[in-house]
């Protein structure tokens, strides 16, 4: 045997290496490795499988109570399959249900107020959080200062009724609602109007964007099919050619903010036909609005007004609709009254005033009874923010800091007060909360019909349950909350009943008309009118937290972080503004900056249409810092009956 020299060693090594490589290649490992590499670098994600099921439930988000079918894969809800709704609630529900920024446990503030960082909060147990909140409330009640406890609710529902009751039982009258169609018409008319759109044959809408989120979207969509079938006439008065205005049979392109005057003009024509409503004092005001005056103020022709009045009075079952806007509604109380007067004059069967009656009056403890006398009853939310006083405030799903024209002032007051927020997502208002309670989506809460289809998300609980358990810990309140749980309450709650007559307040009407006429006068300082428009799903801001809703935003409104306002072409020419230019808008209330212009003739001359819903400071990373929130510069005049800022029509200038 020869000695193995260097050359031989190389041969052995070479043989081994080549052999090893061939073995590796022939085993197929490189190809599998390549495939693995491709999958790994692409982060290929395959959703887990499971048994497919369809769960039936009822959407309790509104009165319509839509039946829902939820497609489940194992324990995951993957799709809401229901065709009877056109409402963003139900379609968005999964996005909220599985939102990555959903609050998963009660949170206590440890950081500075007004920050959006989650690090400003720490998780606590329900007992601890409820205990801390009730301790603060008990202290106030014990000092007979229960009137400094306030509550703000979003929806007009049972959970809000619970908050009303809790606040009242503590000895305060400060239970308010965010302005909505319901809350505004209740404040103005003393009850909410139930419209029977399916059976009406002529609908006269005063700026109510009926098909753009107004009222209950799913029933509006159902009604729309009925109108198409029956040939119901839809007449829309608006300053912007909105979708509803385009789908309407007739569009009355009025000057921005003159809906009330148009209503007066039509009432005037109806009165000529011997119809009357609202009493002598009211009718005296109506008499002043002859068609030529109305025509001059609204920008319509006398003929148009007379024709509309004619159509309206001829109709068998006409209905006039108040409540300008889509999801975010803002109309003056006078407008609600005037439009309701039209219905009465025309003898409409399709608009019935109903009064909600959820729960009875609570039992007041001695302390509460003493402090409730101290409590100042204000007309509505904005009135309360401006003139009210509070030390503890409970926010039930609402976001007044973002949505109210007085949001900044509320934030300032909240900075000094003890704030409790019940919400599934950290919104602009919750930025100031001391305690946050995670609430549920309708998919997770039990209903009168049965158990919820899905288990509650982590440590969330329904707002109603949250308020009931809180009430159990507050002194002298327990007696008013005999229910074991929210479901227990649902089973015993009452229904709405018919309301009495409406108080047609002519004084308010005269004031409002004067204000509008003043606003209409061309002013050198603020030559333009600004009115809000809303986008599908974004609405007045609630949709911004959901990525799939963001995908529906159209190019000419918001794209790549730039918010566009719509300006009439001719007007833009007069003001030297070109397409896509960056402008600032100023009103007497303030200034917002950096919006782009989009020139389009769908907007009335001398008008800027600004989208609502943008410019959140918080409300998840999807909504945060996108565009601007115009509420701050919108008109702040507080309506005497509804107590909310009538922000619809604002005089502005481009700066």
């Amino acid at each position, binding site marked *: 045997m020869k000695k193995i020299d260097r050359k031989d060693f190389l041969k052995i090594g070479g043989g081994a290496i080549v052999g090893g490589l061939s073995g590796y290649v022939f085993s197929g490992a490189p190809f599998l490795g390549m495939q693995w*590499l*491709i999958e790994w*670098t*692409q982060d290929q994600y395959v959703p887990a499988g499971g048994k497919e099921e369809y769960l039936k439930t009822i959407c309790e988000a509104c009165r319509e109570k839509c039946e829902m079918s939820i497609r489940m894969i194992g324990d995951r809800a993957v799709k809401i399959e229901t065709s009877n709704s056109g409402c963003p609630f139900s379609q968005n529900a999964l996005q909220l249900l599985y939102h990555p920024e959903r609050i998963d446990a009660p949170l206590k503030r440890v950081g500075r107020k007004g920050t959006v960082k989650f690090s400003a909060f720490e998780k606590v147990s329900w007992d601890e959080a409820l205990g801390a909140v009730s301790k603060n409330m008990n202290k106030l009640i014990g000092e007979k200062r229960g009137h400094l406890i306030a509550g703000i609710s979003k929806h007009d529902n049972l959970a809000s009724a619970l908050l009303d009751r809790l606040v009242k039982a503590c000895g305060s009258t400060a239970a308010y609602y965010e302005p909505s169609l319901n809350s505004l018409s209740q404040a103005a008319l003393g009850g909410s109007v139930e419209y029977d759109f399916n059976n009406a044959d002529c609908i006269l809408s005063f700026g109510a964007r009926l098909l753009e989120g107004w009222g209950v979207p799913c029933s509006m969509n159902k009604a729309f099919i009925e109108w198409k079938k029956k040939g119901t006439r839809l007449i829309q008065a608006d300053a912007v050619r909105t979708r509803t205005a385009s789908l309407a049979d007739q569009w009355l392109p009025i000057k921005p903010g003159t809906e009330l005057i148009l209503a007066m003009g039509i009432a005037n024509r109806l009165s000529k036909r011997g119809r009357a409503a609202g009493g002598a004092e009211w009718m005296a005001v109506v008499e002043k609005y002859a068609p030529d005056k109305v025509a001059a103020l609204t920008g319509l022709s006398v003929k148009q007004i007379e024709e509309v009045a004619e159509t309206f009075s001829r109709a068998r079952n006409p209905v006039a609709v108040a409540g300008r806007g889509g999801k975010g509604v803002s109309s003056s109380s006078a407008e609600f009254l005037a439009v309701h007067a039209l219905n009465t004059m025309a003898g409409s069967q399709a608009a019935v005033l109903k009064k909600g009656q959820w729960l009875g009056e609570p039992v007041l403890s001695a302390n509460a009874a003493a402090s409730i006398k101290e409590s100042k009853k204000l007309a509505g939310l904005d009135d309360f923010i401006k003139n009210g006083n509070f030390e503890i405030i409970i926010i039930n799903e609402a976001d007044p800091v973002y949505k109210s024209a007085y949001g900044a002032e509320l934030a300032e007051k909240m900075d000094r007060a003890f704030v409790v927020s019940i919400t599934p997502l950290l919104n602009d208002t919750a930025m100031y909360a001391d305690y946050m309670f995670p609430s549920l989506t309708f998919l997770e809460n039990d209903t009168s019909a049965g158990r919820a289809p899905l288990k509650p998300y982590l440590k969330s609980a329904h707002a109603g349950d949250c308020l009931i358990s809180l009430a159990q810990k507050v002194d002298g309140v327990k007696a008013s909350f005999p229910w074991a749980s929210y479901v227990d309450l649902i089973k015993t709650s009452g229904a709405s009943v018919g309301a009495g007559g409406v108080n047609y307040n002519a004084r308010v009407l005269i004031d409002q008309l004067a204000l509008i006429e003043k606003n209409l006068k061309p002013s050198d300082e603020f030559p333009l009118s600004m009115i809000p428009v809303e986008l599908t799903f974004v609405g007045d801001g609630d949709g911004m937290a959901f990525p799939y809703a963001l995908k529906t935003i159209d*190019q000419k409104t918001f794209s790549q972080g730039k918010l566009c306002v719509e300006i009439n072409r001719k007007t833009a020419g007069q003001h030297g503004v070109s397409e896509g230019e960056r402008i600032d808008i100023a009103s007497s209330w303030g200034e917002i900056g950096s919006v782009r212009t989009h020139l389009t003739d769908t907007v009335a001359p001398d008008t800027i249409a600004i989208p609502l819903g943008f410019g959140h400071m918080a409300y998840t990373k999807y909504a945060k810092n996108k565009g601007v929130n115009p509420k701050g510069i919108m008109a702040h005049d507080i309506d005497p009956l509804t107590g909310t800022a009538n922000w619809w029509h604002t005089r502005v200038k481009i700066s």
Partner: protein
Amino acid sequence: MGELIKRAIDTIKAEFNSYSTGVKIALGVMFFLTAGFVIFGIQILFWGLGYTDMSNLYPFGQWIIGDLGLVSLGGGAFTTGFALYIFRNDKLEPIINSTVLIGFLCYLFTFIFLVFDIGQPLRAWFGYTYPNWGEHLMPTSMLTEVIWCLTLYFMILCVEIVPVALKHKVLDAIPALHYVGHYLHRIMWILAAAGTFLSFFHQGSLGGGMWDIMYGKAVWFRAHHIYFFVVIIGATAGGTAFMTLCAYLAGKVMKKEVVPAETFHSIAKISGILFVAFFIARLVDVVLMATRWVPLFDRSYISLQGGLYGLWLLVLEFLLLAVVIVMLLPKKNREQEKRFLIGIIAGVAAITTDKLITVLNGSSVPNFPWRDYIWYWPTIQEWFIMLGGLSVMAMIYMWCAKYLPLFPHAEKHAHHEGKSQAVAE
């Protein structure tokens, strides 16, 4: 180890210091761009194309322009090779090595840009394994055709570049390699012919076919057989101008006559004639577009020329073409150095503009009547990858010009004239 690094640094220092100030500055800029190329290249490959300004509305951007430009300018390699080996225009002999190298680099970087441009670089090989051959082996997807033709022609260029590399004094000393190089050189005409054939196809496919088969788009659709050849002529014209320009610049930088003047004049003449052909072809193309193809969409040609990249680019292209023809065609013009230079620069610019029109204007045209023209401005990532790639190309070319017998003419002269030239080098 430390010693080794020190020696390497010293070598690089010495190398860097051997250049003149102007070249040093240029090298610095190119190194900077290359660094950006590497950094942003990693970003794009690992985190995706989201960092570019391309979008769903504007799917093709700067890198596609780069691909188109590089391929058509690199097309000078086949034109020159064809003229030299098939037509036996021996005046072109001194420039051919440089031409082959540029062609090689252009194609190499076309691949590199393509890899950046596709969303799934790891799946790039799908083009070979699942090609979209249509019926009768006529590729329905021009990109399939392009991938195959480019690959094959790139292989040919690799073979063509081997003899040049083998001429390096170290390699040439090995007898075996010397013979390989020699015989490869002898069969070069076969490669030139095959290259011409392949190049014809992919020039037409990438520059023309790729666009005109998109029959849904008014701005791109036209009769295949016309535009296909328009682009080929463009590539032959622009390519020759680019080859000339590169060699000219190399000469200026190296401060010596790398290519005899008569070579320049000969190739400029070829280029000039081809540019006349291209001018006519392009004119026919535009007229046909305006009168025949665009009206089939119920649109007008002029309405497609709006936006940021509209009519002015088209006008610019024809102006540049006119400049080339005036400067290169008459003998007295092209034999004057300044006019010759203006001519070839305008030629390269004209072809680049042609590609800009194809991509920039083509993508920015709105698809719906209510949409506006789209605005595209490449992001910093796109710029660095594009310019960084080009600087790498330039640096490789510089290195080759210095160490490989890229310009045999200059070497010969160096032997004749003695040491002074070598020092300048």
